[in-house]
């Protein structure tokens, strides 16, 4: 029965959530190829590695949108399975799919020595996992908190661009270092990176806890979208 519900949600998460992570990798692959053709071969590995910065945005927005909306919400709230469980199941599927794509992509990059910030085969997965969970959490909190999908997507997108744009400055400032989403691994101060990844995972747990709390509030959910 439970497996049937998972299968049902698998079909419901939409073609956009399936295609987006693959599309992001394909787009960066095409840009890396173009860079090679244009005589910017030295940038190829950097462009390919930055795919790991793009995937958290893709998965985060997909998961946050699935978590916070349902066209038949009133019906969902009458079912024996709580809407919270259904929404989390959908978000988990979207995150698992993006995670699977990212995992395979990271292994391929590391195996071909194209990953420009390698850590170790296991720790490499934290490059994308910590920001992915954070973006999903940020998106979910803003979606549910402001009761508008546009708020979740907009704020998530701005934070993604902000973190990439000010990456160096955020990485070098002690106060912002633990919450720098795209901190690069430096073997001379390895502990900084590990602490950063742990802090990001803890932040994601806090954000999800808040989102889960709001998902259980039927009255809040029934108020619908804010405009």
């Amino acid at each position: 029965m439970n497996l049937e519900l998972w299968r049902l949600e698998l079909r419901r998460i939409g073609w956009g959530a399936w295609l987006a992570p693959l599309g992001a990798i394909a787009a960066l692959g095409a840009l890396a190829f173009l860079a090679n053709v244009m005589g910017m071969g030295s940038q190829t590995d950097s462009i390919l590695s930055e795919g790991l910065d793009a995937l958290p945005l893709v998965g985060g927005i997909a998961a946050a949108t699935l978590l916070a909306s349902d066209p038949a919400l009133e019906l969902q709230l009458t079912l024996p399975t709580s809407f919270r469980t259904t929404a989390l199941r959908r978000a988990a599927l979207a995150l698992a799919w993006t995670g699977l794509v990212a995992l395979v992509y990271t292994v391929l990059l590391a195996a071909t020595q194209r990953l420009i910030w390698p850590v170790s085969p296991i720790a490499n997965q934290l490059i994308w996992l910590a920001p992915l969970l954070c973006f999903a959490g940020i998106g979910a909190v803003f979606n549910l908190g402001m009761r508008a999908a546009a708020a979740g997507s907009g704020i998530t997108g701005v934070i993604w661009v902000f973190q990439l744009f000010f990456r160096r400055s955020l990485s070098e400032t002690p106060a912002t270092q633990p919450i720098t989403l795209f901190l690069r691994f430096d073997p001379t101060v390895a502990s900084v990176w590990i602490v950063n990844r742990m802090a990001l995972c803890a932040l994601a747990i806090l954000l999800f806890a808040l989102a889960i709390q709001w998902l259980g509030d039927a009255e809040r959910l029934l108020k619908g979208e804010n405009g």
Partner: protein
Amino acid sequence: MTLVGVLRYEFLMQTRRPVVWLVLVLVALLSSFPFLQGLPTELTGLEVAAGVTYFMNTFMPIAFGILLSDRLPRDRRLNTNELLASFPSSAGTRLWGKFLGAAAATALPFSALYLIVAGILAIQRGDASILAFELPLLILTVLPGLIFVGTFSLLCTEMLPDPLYAVLFIGYWFWGNVVSPRRIPTPACTPLTPIGGFAEHGILGTPGGLCSGLIPPITPAQGWLSIALLIGVAAIAMLAGQFYSNWRTEES
């Protein structure tokens, strides 16, 4: 007359959405991060105003685009399309009204926030010229980009799910406007770049920028061409959207 009615309704609807104001204020606060770290005292009023425009324009249009991208999906979700189709106005007129009304309502707090940040810096530095320079920067470099971004944000969600459009738009904005062409092949540093560098450097003559050293100095004519291209491409896209909306209504 029908267009004015739709425009007025869409304007009021978007203005009364708390999320529009909340998201824009949050993004403006985030965009002010470089100013919190302090600015060099030797900068002129024009350079400070250009700095405000550059940093805010790196992030604020993302919020602007996303806040417009849910207008058409909302009509579909609430099943109001069928009701609106029974009105005498054509689908194309409603599309133009929706764009003009919602874009104007979002651009209002958007522009006010630019001027507030410039005003705060003008008071801090005791230099009123910062605010005086901010107004032409807003009109010449920011607004044409908003028309471009707003048009595609409204039209693309006619065919794409809005979360997918959000991902594509945010990715495009970063890649096509913010990343240097030295690092990656990108359409940045062309007249069709909505972040407005061509108009800013060409018409107002501000120094530096992402394209500095990559392309020859931008002339005022190239600045005006960039504005015309951004608005022209947006107008063509809107006309195509108008014909598509009318055609689809006739087919259904």
